[in-house]
C-alpha cells in the first residue's frame, strides 16, 4: 500500500466539489436568446394556452418592463443580462408517457445518479413524483391514486388546459404580477411547474414531491407552482433540487403560491441544492424566488427549507395570515460555503385576530460566504392578540465568513406579543478535538455539530427528506475547517 500523501489529499479536495455536478445529454428544444412580446406570445403558443393566459403573461411583461431589479439585499453580484437568456427549453418530447419504458433512458440514469430512481420511489416510499426537467414536466406518477380522492397533481401547463377555472381564480392571487421584479418576470415567461388541488375535507394520503433540475446551459428556469388546499383539507408538499455544474451563471426565478382555505393545512418542505459555484466563486445559480402563502380562517401554512446551494439566494417564504386564528410557520436552515451569498428569511403578515406565527432560522456560514437572515413580522391594526416567536441562530466556521440578522418588526396593535431571540456561535477547536478523540474525524464532527445545531428544523421535515437533507449538509460543509 502506498502512503497517502499531501498531493493525494489535494487531488481529492479538488475533485470533491459538486457531487451532483453532472450533465445529462438530452436533446433540447430551445428558443433564441432575448425577451420581447413575441417571445412571451411564443411561449404561450408553444404550450397551447388559452387567450386569457396569453394576455395575463403579456400584462406581466408590460409591468416587468417598468420595474427595476431590486438591490436592497445584502448580496453583490453581476446583474444578469436579461436579453442574453433563452426563455424556453423543453426536453425533446415523446408523445405519450404512460409507463417508465417511455421515459428517456438518459433521464432515468440522471435520477439514478441522484438516488431517486422512480421505480424505487413508486415501489417503496409511496411518494408521487411530478418531475420537472428543464422547464417541462416529463413524467407524472401516482396520478390515478390521487385522482380517486379527487386530488389534482399535475404540471401547471396541464392544469391551464384541464382546470382553467381553478388556475384563473388563484394564479397571481397571492403573489400578484406587480409584486416584485422577479415575480413579474416569472409571470410573463414561466415555463412550467406544478399544480396541486386538494378538495374539501380531503387529507392527501401521500407526500407530494417534485424534483427540479436546471439542465440546459444558458437557459433561465422559471417555475410556477400553485397549491390550493380547499376547506379542511391537508397536504404535505416536498420540493427538492440539484443542478449540474455550469460555468456561467444561471438565473432561477420561481414563484410559489399557496392557498390554504378555511381550516386547511399546507406543509411545504424544500431541500435546495442548486449549483453553488466552484471554490473560487465562479458560476453558480442565482436563486431569486418569491414564495408566499395565504391563510384563511383557522388555516395553517408551514414552510420548511434546507438551503445549501446557489451562488446567490434571495428568498423569503412568507405567510399572509388573513383569517382569524390562522397560523404561519417558517423553519429554515441556510448553509453558505466558499463564496456563496444568501439573503433569506420570511415575512409574517398578521391581518386576522389571534393569528400566530413561529420563525426558527438557522444560518451556517463557512469559507468566505455571507449569510443574512432578513425577516418581517407585521401586525396590522385589527390583528388583535396576534403572537409571534422568532429565533435566529447563526453558526460560524472559520474567520472569513459573515452572519447577519435583519429583523423588522412592525406592530400596529397593542395586544400583540412578539418575541425575538438571536444567538451566534462558532464551532470551536475544543469541540472538534473532543469528537476526534472519540474516533470521529473532523468532517464527520462538523456534520454532527451542524446537525445538532439544525435539529429543530430537520425535525420538521418528513422522514425521508430529513435523511437527504442531513446528507446534503454534510456534503456542503466537507473540508470547510482545518
Amino acid at each position, binding site marked *: 500500500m502506498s502512503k497517502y500523501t499531501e498531493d493525494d489529499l489535494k487531488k481529492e479536495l479538488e475533485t470533491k466539489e459538486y457531487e451532483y455536478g453532472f450533465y445529462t445529454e438530452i436533446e433540447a428544444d430551445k428558443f433564441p436568446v432575448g425577451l420581447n412580446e413575441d417571445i412571451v406570445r411564443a411561449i404561450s403558443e408553444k404550450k397551447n394556452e388559452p387567450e386569457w393566459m396569453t394576455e395575463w403573461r403579456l400584462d406581466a411583461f408590460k409591468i416587468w418592463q417598468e420595474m427595476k431589479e431590486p438591490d436592497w439585499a445584502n448580496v453583490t453580484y453581476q446583474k444578469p443580462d436579461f436579453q442574453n437568456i433563452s426563455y424556453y427549453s423543453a426536453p425533446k418530447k415523446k408523445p405519450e408517457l404512460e409507463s417508465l419504458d417511455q421515459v428517456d433512458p438518459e433521464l432515468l440514469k440522471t435520477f439514478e445518479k441522484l438516488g431517486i430512481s422512480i421505480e424505487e420511489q413508486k415501489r417503496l416510499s409511496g411518494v408521487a413524483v411530478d418531475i420537472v426537467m428543464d422547464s417541462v414536466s416529463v413524467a407524472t406518477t401516482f396520478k390515478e391514486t390521487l385522482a380517486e380522492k379527487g386530488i389534482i397533481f399535475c404540471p401547471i401547463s396541464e392544469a391551464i388546459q384541464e382546470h382553467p377555472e381553478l388556475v384563473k381564480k388563484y394564479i397571481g392571487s397571492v403573489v400578484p404580477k406587480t409584486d416584485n421584479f422577479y415575480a413579474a418576470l416569472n409571470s410573463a415567461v414561466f415555463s412550467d411547474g406544478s399544480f396541486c388541488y386538494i378538495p374539501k375535507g380531503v387529507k392527501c394520503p401521500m407526500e407530494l414531491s417534485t424534483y427540479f433540475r436546471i439542465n440546459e446551459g444558458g437557459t433561465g428556469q422559471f417555475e410556477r407552482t400553485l397549491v390550493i388546499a380547499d376547506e379542511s383539507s391537508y397536504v404535505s408538499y416536498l420540493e427538492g433540487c440539484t443542478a449540474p455544474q455550469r460555468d456561467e451563471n444561471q438565473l432561477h426565478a420561481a414563484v410559489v403560491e399557496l392557498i390554504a382555505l378555511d381550516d386547511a393545512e399546507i406543509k411545504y418542505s424544500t431541500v435546495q441544492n442548486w449549483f453553488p459555484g466552484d471554490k473560487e466563486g465562479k458560476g453558480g445559480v442565482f436563486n431569486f424566488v418569491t414564495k408566499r402563502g395565504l391563510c384563511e380562517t383557522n388555516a395553517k401554512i408551514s414552510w420548511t427549507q434546507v438551503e445549501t446551494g446557489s451562488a446567490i439566494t434571495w428568498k423569503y417564504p412568507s405567510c399572509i395570515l388573513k383569517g382569524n386564528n390562522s397560523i404561519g410557520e417558517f423553519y429554515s436552515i441556510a448553509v453558505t460555503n466558499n463564496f456563496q451569498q444568501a439573503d433569506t428569511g420570511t415575512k409574517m403578515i398578521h391581518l386576522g385576530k389571534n393569528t400566530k406565527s413561529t420563525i426558527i432560522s438557522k444560518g451556517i456560514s463557512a469559507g468566505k460566504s455571507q449569510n443574512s437572515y432578513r425577516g418581517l413580522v407585521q401586525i396590522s391594526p385589527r390583528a388583535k392578540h396576534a403572537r409571534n416567536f422568532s429565533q435566529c441562530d447563526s453558526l460560524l466556521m472559520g474567520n472569513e465568513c459573515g452572519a447577519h440578522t435583519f429583523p423588522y418588526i412592525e406592530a400596529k396593535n397593542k395586544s400583540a406579543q412578539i418575541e425575538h431571540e438571536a444567538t451566534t456561535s462558532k464551532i*470551536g477547536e475544543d469541540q472538534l*478535538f*473532543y469528537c476526534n*478523540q472519540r*474516533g470521529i*474525524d473532523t468532517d*464527520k464532527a462538523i456534520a454532527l455539530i451542524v*446537525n*445538532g445545531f439544525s435539529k429543530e428544523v430537520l425535525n420538521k421535515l418528513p422522514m425521508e427528506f430529513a435523511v437527504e437533507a442531513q446528507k446534503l449538509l454534510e456534503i456542503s460543509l466537507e473540508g470547510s475547517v482545518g
Partner: protein
Amino acid sequence: MLEIKNLHASIEDKDILKGINLSVKPGEVHAIMGPNGSGKSTLSSVIAGREDYEVTKGEIVLNGEDLEDLAPDERAHKGIFMSFQYPVEIPGVTVTNFIKTAINETRKANGLEELPAKDMLKKIRATAELLEIDRKFLSRSLNEGFSGGEKKRNEIFQMAMLEPKLAILDETDSGLDIDALKVVANGVNKLKSEDNAVVLITHYQRLLEYIVPDYVHVLHDGKIVKSGGAELALELEEKGYDWVK
C-alpha cells in the same frame, strides 16, 4: 502496550514536557500525580494527539506503532481513550447519537461493519445499567446543562462503550462528590481487564482509594521525579509535593 521515551513537548514555544519515560503494560493501572502546572494534562493531550502541542523530541509508541503521524481520531481508532477534565457541550446531539457515531466511525476505521441498531441499543442499555445511568439521561444533549458529576459519568459511559485498550482519565475525580466518585471508580474497576490499561491523572490521592494503582508516578516540572507502588500516593498525601521536588 504504551511506551513513552524521552518525550519533550511544547506549546507556543514554551517547553512543558521535558523528557518523560513511561512504560505501561496490559492489565496495569498507573497513576500520574503532581502539583498544578507540572504537565499532567499536557501529557494526556499529547498522547491523545492534540495539535496545539508540538512534540519536539522523543516518541510515543502504542503496541509497537509510533503515533507521531497519527491524527487524534486515528489514535482513537487504535484504542486510545481520554476522559476529559472539561468535557465539551454539543447542543442538539444526544448522548446516544454521539456514542453511536463514535462507535461506528471507529468500527469503520477498523474495517468492521456498523453495529446493527438493535445491538447498539442493547449495549447502550447494558452499559447504562452498569454505571447506574438513568435512561432519560441518554436522550439529553451531550454535556449541555450537565452537572460536574453527570459530565464525568458520561465520560466513563463513553469509555465503557468504546472499550479502549488504553484509557487515560484526566482529573476525572475533580469536581465530584463522594457518591459520584464511587460510581465513576466502580465503573473503571468493572471495566479493567488483563487486556487493557488505565492511566489515571490526578492531583489528589482520593480517587486512588477506590481505584488502586499498580504504579504511582510523580510528575514535576515536565519530568517524572519519582515512581513507586500504591503506597507512594499515601506518602505524598501525608508529606505534600514539596517532599519530592
